């Protein structure tokens, strides 16, 4: 590389800081951090779709599928975090690949709501399945890490580092991918599918690839969430409100940068946590109000704050 990629540098610094901070964080901070990483990963998938011109109101499908796939493995005696997360990610990816053949033919609101329809099918199946605890879900046993079986607080500390490493790899990977031809074709498909076809490539194929990717990372986020909370249940894993949260985070973050999704997810967790703590009757009101404020004052999301700052730095002084 002839030049240094600022985003990769930024992500690497954030990775190192969080890595070290993990050993000093208060337990509740780490818990919020874990959830932010998990949800941020899902939002990263939505960001890729968004750049292709598509919004999904149903990615709780893959989030929930990944979470339940990982959790169900613990029921039959597997506890290794690597295996669980890999299985959750892969299961969601395969599902996205299969549904992708249908969904890649739809655009706009039809795409968004068809996703939601599929996610509600999963929700319905889980709620009706008593073996999976129905609406109560079931608890996920403490994971081991390649034979290392941490106890007490060490479980979350290890899980945090485990999650951090994988999200770092995924995020840098997505950032680099966006500079490739296939990554750049997001723009082409969003702007003009006819031209893409007449340049000799299938727009639907491009969308399918992006869709499978978004499914994979959503499954990853779900599996991490299952391990972090130690519990899976349909309402916090597969309900349509969960899908809404992911779209919320994506709007909050903006699609300017891959790192933004984690910041957006963190802001979301903080708003929700504090709103719930200080205004238990009105927390949804506060959440909605902050979304409104973002749309009105920062339509390009939190990330546009950074680019605004950078622009004013560069502006010549009068």
């Amino acid at each position, binding site marked *: 590389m002839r030049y240094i990629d600022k985003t990769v540098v930024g992500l690497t610094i954030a990775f190192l800081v969080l890595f070290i901070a993990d050993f000093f964080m208060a337990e509740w901070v780490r818990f919020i951090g874990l959830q932010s990483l998990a949800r941020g990963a899902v939002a990263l998938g939505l960001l890729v779709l968004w750049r292709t011109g598509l919004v999904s109101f149903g990615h709780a499908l893959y989030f929930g599928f990944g979470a339940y796939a990982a959790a169900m493995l613990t029921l039959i005696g597997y506890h290794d975090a690597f295996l669980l997360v890999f299985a959750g990610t892969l299961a969601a990816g395969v599902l996205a690949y299969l549904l992708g053949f249908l969904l890649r033919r739809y655009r706009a609101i039809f795409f968004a709501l068809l996703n939601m329809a599929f996610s509600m099918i999963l929700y319905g199946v889980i709620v009706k399945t008593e073996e999976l605890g129905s609406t109560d879900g079931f608890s996920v046993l403490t994971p081991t890490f390649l034979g290392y079986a941490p106890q007490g607080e060490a479980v979350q500390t290890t899980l945090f580092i485990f999650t951090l490493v994988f999200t770092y790899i995924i995020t840098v990977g997505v950032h680099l991918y966006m500079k*490739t031809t296939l990554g750049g074709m997001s723009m082409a498909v969003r702007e*003009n599918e006819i031209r893409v076809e007449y*340049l000799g490539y299938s727009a639907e194929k491009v969308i399918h690839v992006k869709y499978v990717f978004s499914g994979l990372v959503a499954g990853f986020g779900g599996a991490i969430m299952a391990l972090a909370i130690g519990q899976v249940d349909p309402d916090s894993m597969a309900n349509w409100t969960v899908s809404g949260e992911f779209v919320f985070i994506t709007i909050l973050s903006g699609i300017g940068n891959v790192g933004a999704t984690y910041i957006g997810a963190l802001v979301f967790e903080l708003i929700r946590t504090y709103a719930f703590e200080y205004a238990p009757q009105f927390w949804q009101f506060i959440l909605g109000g902050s979304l409104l404020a973002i749309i009105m004052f920062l339509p390009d999301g939190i990330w546009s704050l950074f680019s605004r700052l950078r622009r004013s730095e560069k502006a010549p002084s009068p």
Partner: protein
Amino acid sequence: MTIVLEVRDLQKTFGAVVAAKDINVTVNEHEIIGIIGANGAGKTTFVNMVTGYLKPTSGQIEFAGRSIMGLPPRDITTLGISRSFQIPQVFLSESVFDNLLMAYAITEATGLGLLSPLLNDARAARVDSHLERYQIAQYRNALASTLPQGVRKLLDIAMAAVSKPTILMLDEPTSGISVEEKFGLMDIIMEALRQDQTTVLFIEHDMEIVERYVSRVLAFYQGEIICDAPTAEALVDPGVREFVIGEEYHRTRTGSENAGENAGENAGENGGGEDA
């Protein structure tokens, strides 16, 4: 001469409407062919069928000796038939450079090559020389949405020509362009395509353009080809003069005794647009 495109008995109906019937055309390598006809005569339908956008009801289309019937546009493009559009199909929110960069990238990358960087020095150099050839280098960093119509048309055609197609079909390259600019625009396009040795078929309403750039004319009327002849011959063909040109618009008024009779039904057909 090598035959590159052979169309036999092509037919297209939309319900009871016959958009094309009994179309038989043979195109030789390096020919420059003008497609003329009134609005709704079937010109764009013909282009849409050859490029795979519309599926013919019946007939046969052979390109370089193999049938391309039923193939989607992307496969036909890959084989070597490209097209531009009456309404430019570009990536509006991107710069001219990025538009062509994407065109080059999609054309060049296959398989795992799709995962190589979009922008590299060699490709950027190719894009810049392409910009020079189509004389739009001064708009390199302008957004496609802000371009004047003529430049946007050039960009559209330049993008279609990136793959160095065997055949390039241009759908009304000069529609929406002022009279003063038309010839300059066509000079640029035809010179660039001549260098690539591209066979060109273009739809055109302006007979002056047809006379100047085209060696052979296909005249459409009500879904049929009523005349397929060298330009000079075609433009004096009675059928063409009656149903396509509309006498009073033409400069050389040879044999225009019956002009008045047809003026009414042909008026307004020369300047109008047709949906792609």
